[in-house]
């Protein structure tokens, strides 16, 4: 067996104040192998990734442990020595290429800098070869462009080319496809796979997206609260996860090919500095027996076949079974609740006008969930805003229960404003940071239902319970809550008006996978309880599969496909839909729906 190219041993990284971020991390990666490092926010995966280059951000330091690449240590040495190794021996591809590329230098300079610093040869040929290797044009005009003149996908390819031009033995990629549309993401993943096959580099691929990692990695390591909780061959780990967190994570991943109910993990992820004495996952663990895990940290145990788990009760972890989505409540027979006909909307800029929505028509019946899916720029958010009255369409009508609505919300009758509510994408923005949570939730009840102060606040408390949040949160400010909690509050606020239709504009796109599953699960239940109709906007086909009854596919502002979710996803007919479905990464070898 060849010696490992990357060896990490007992890595411990902490804040300057002594609070640990990453503890007891040991890894091995061989040449030509892809290791997927998986975790959600706060797991420490990015900090670990940076440490593989011997780097720690300001305020953070590598306290203990060793990182070795091809026999060369990257820790415990002076900065100058380590820096000489970076780029040549091990290189890094960052998450956001738009921010990672120097805006003042041309592409040829960016790649050329790498060559000039580490190799002796002159640049011209190397730069062209590097660009060609990632399938970018190699002509002079292209190489003389600045980063902002490239698309996101092209920028990321430049970053990858820069990382590979000096033939490093190890490449660390940190969520390199976040922010790219699904089709571009698929292409970039293909590139990475091809390059590692051709060159035999070892790859560490950091991501929160199990589906992406599952399709690319040979081995997977799952991190939670700064530690590796499970690690092993990708196939074995995904087929039969042993750690309850891994299992919960897998259960949360939406699968675009198969509509199913998502399982969520109860509780909230623990933040840096709040980690308990024993196993960090224990407070949320459903299969915990007794108190041992709360006091003692389980060691990494071998489960067989190179698969290791950090859990006392790993033998109890049941296999993952996937459930059919809950049967949606019967849809209202009498006439559609919302009817949108011939909608056309534009964005007037300083120099030009962009048509965002062309001739879009659809209907939603009471109690039904219509999903609208498309890439960024497809016009789906604009449609949502037109329905709610935040954007005036240039043509077309929005009809609620037979009554046409005014384009602007302020002009609509109060009943119309009450019956249609909206929840936004960004949890940091949906709530006024200066208002307490209880006040925020009570506001629609007071404004749209004329409830007196006391009743409105009582309603707010009831709603908090309904969205599974403790009632005492009503006194807190949004800044004290996590992203998932804030979205639940936003949902509670929408419910305070007793609406018939809730427009959800990418409400889970900014959330961790497990948090997303919990919010989607909540919505599914609320739908049944309250007979809510939903207009669910998303770019993620997997989410559509988990929550929609019918789906509308948007391409460039026009509807190109629509129909029942299950049928459309299993056998997509339209070419664009097919491309979306095929590009969406999905977990391999997941057990069939039970």
């Amino acid at each position, binding site marked *: 067996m060849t010696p490992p190219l990357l060896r990490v041993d007992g890595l411990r990284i902490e804040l300057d104040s002594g609070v640990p971020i990453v503890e007891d991390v040991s890894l091995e990666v061989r040449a030509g192998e892809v290791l997927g490092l998986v975790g959600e926010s706060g797991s420490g995966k990015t900090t670990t990734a*940076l440490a593989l*280059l011997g*780097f720690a*951000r300001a305020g953070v330091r590598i306290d203990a442990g060793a990182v070795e690449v091809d026999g060369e240590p990257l820790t415990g040495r002076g900065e*100058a020595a380590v*820096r*000489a*190794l*970076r*780029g*040549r021996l091990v*290189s*890094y591809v*960052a998450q*956001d290429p738009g*921010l*990672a*590329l*120097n*805006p*003042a*230098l*041309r592409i040829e300079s960016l790649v050329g*800098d*790498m060559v000039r*610093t*580490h190799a002796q040869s002159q640049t011209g040929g190397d730069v062209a070869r590097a660009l060609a290797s990632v*399938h970018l*044009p190699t002509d002079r*005009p292209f190489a003389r*462009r*600045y980063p*902002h*003149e*490239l*698309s*996101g*996908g*092209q920028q990321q390819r430049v970053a990858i080319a*820069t990382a590979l031009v000096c033939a490093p033995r190890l490449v660390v990629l940190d969520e390199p496809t976040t922010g790219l*549309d699904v*089709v*571009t993401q698929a*292409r970039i993943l293909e590139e990475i796979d091809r390059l590692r096959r051709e060159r035999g580099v070892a790859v560490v691929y950091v991501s929160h997206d199990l589906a992406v990692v599952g399709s690319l990695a040979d081995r997977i390591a799952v991190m939670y609260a700064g530690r590796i909780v499970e690690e092993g061959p990708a196939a074995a780990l995904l087929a039969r996860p042993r750690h309850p967190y891994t299992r919960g994570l897998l259960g949360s991943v939406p699968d675009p090919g198969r509509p199913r109910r998502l399982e969520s993990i109860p509780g909230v992820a623990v933040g840096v500095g709040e980690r308990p004495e024993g196993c960090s996952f224990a407070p949320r663990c459903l299969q915990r027996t007794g108190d041992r895990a709360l006091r003692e940290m389980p060691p990494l145990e071998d489960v067989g076949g190179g698969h290791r788990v950090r859990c006392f009760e790993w033998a109890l972890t049941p296999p993952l079974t996937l459930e059919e989505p809950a049967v949606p409540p019967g849809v209202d027979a009498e006439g559609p609740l919302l009817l949108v006909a011939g909608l056309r909307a534009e964005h007037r800029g300083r120099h030009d006008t962009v048509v965002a929505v062309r001739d879009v028509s659809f209907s939603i019946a009471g109690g039904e969930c219509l999903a609208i899916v498309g*890439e960024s*720029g497809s016009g789906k958010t604009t449609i949502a805003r037109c329905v709610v009255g935040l954007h005036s369409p240039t043509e077309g009508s929005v009809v609620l229960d037979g009554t046409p609505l005014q384009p602007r919300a302020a002009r609509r009758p109060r009943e119309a404003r009450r019956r249609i509510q909206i929840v936004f994408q960004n949890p940091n923005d949906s709530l006024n940071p200066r208002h307490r949570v209880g006040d925020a939730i009570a506001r629609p009840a007071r404004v749209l239902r004329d409830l007196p102060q006391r009743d409105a606040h009582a309603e707010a408390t009831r709603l908090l319970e309904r969205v599974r949040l403790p009632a005492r949160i009503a006194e807190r400010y949004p800044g004290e809550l996590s992203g998932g909690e804030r979205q639940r509050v936003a949902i509670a606020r929408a419910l305070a008006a007793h609406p018939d239709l809730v427009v959800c504009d990418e409400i889970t796109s900014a959330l961790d996978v497990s948090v997303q599953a919990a919010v989607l699960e909540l919505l599914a239940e609320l739908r049944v309880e309250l007979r809510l109709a939903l207009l669910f906007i998303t770019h993620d086909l997997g989410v559509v599969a988990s929550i929609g009854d019918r789906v509308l596919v948007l391409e460039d502002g026009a509807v190109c496909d629509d129909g029942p979710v299950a049928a459309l996803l299993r056998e997509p007919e339209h070419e664009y839909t097919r491309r979306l479905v095929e590009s969406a990464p999905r977990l391999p070898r997941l057990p069939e729906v039970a």
Partner: protein
Amino acid sequence: MTDLAAPRAVAPTAGRRRPLLRFVLRRLAAAVATLFAVSILIFLGTEVLPGDAASAVLGRTAAPEQLAEMRAAMGLDRPAYERYLDWLGGVLTGDLGNSAAGYAAGGESPIWEEIRPKIVNSFVLATITALLMIPLALVLGVLSAVRAGRPLDHAVSVSSLAIISLPEFIIGSLLILVFFSWLDVLPPVSLIAPGTSPLAEPKALVLPVLTLLGASLAASIRMVRAGMVEALNAEYVTMARLNGFPERMVVRRYALRNALGPSVQVFAQNVQYLVGGIVVTEYLFNYPGLGKELVDAVAIRDVRAVQVVALLIAAFYILINIVADLLVVLLVPKLRTQA
């Protein structure tokens, strides 16, 4: 194989039809418009507000007939818009009118003759200060940023915060106290005989330059430092370090290059600031420049002179802005393709 999502604002050929030329022309047009607006502002401020220039010249005890005569001579008895157009026409054709001081002395004295030498004097003062300020601010600002948190940075930060709070006349007065009262090495007033160049009397220039330098340097240093710190904290600088580039290269090619664009605007602002500070400084040191001329003119309500000097200074102010904008566009590639 190109990407599915082609970028919107890309093809370099599209906007390349001399974007710089179009940019300059657009800015010039805006500048001319602004200058017009400013001239109206000046006119409104000086002639339309309550307060009578004639009585200011002659004094409050002047007889009504004398006042009427003076008003007629100064052309103050005609409606406002007529006077404005008249004046504007004069300015554009080079006839800047006569100064009230001349009238008071009993004759006509063209303003342009009076202020021409003073323009040169002020220009010399401002230029010397600017030439000292820019390199000093760059060096100290960048050094403070690179060594942020260390002794040099603290010392510079604290002292610059203190100095920018001080009005010029305070800085000047304190300097006079030190270098004249106490040390007696420099003169408290800049006596430059009319007709001689200020460069012939270097001692007369030292204190005014130091005074002007004081607050403008401090402000520039703070802004350059802030820009450099921001650049040093940028993701692309971290990425450069992750790519294994030596620190010197990172600071110079990755951080500094991106901090330069904003620095140009900083210096433009501070040169403009010099223009404001020059008025007080010249008055304090009795330096025969445009600023002192302005104060003297205001004191005797010499409306014509005030208007001319104010317009001149405003034009200069705006010119600096254009030059700065041009330099920034040249230095920041992103703006070039959007221009």
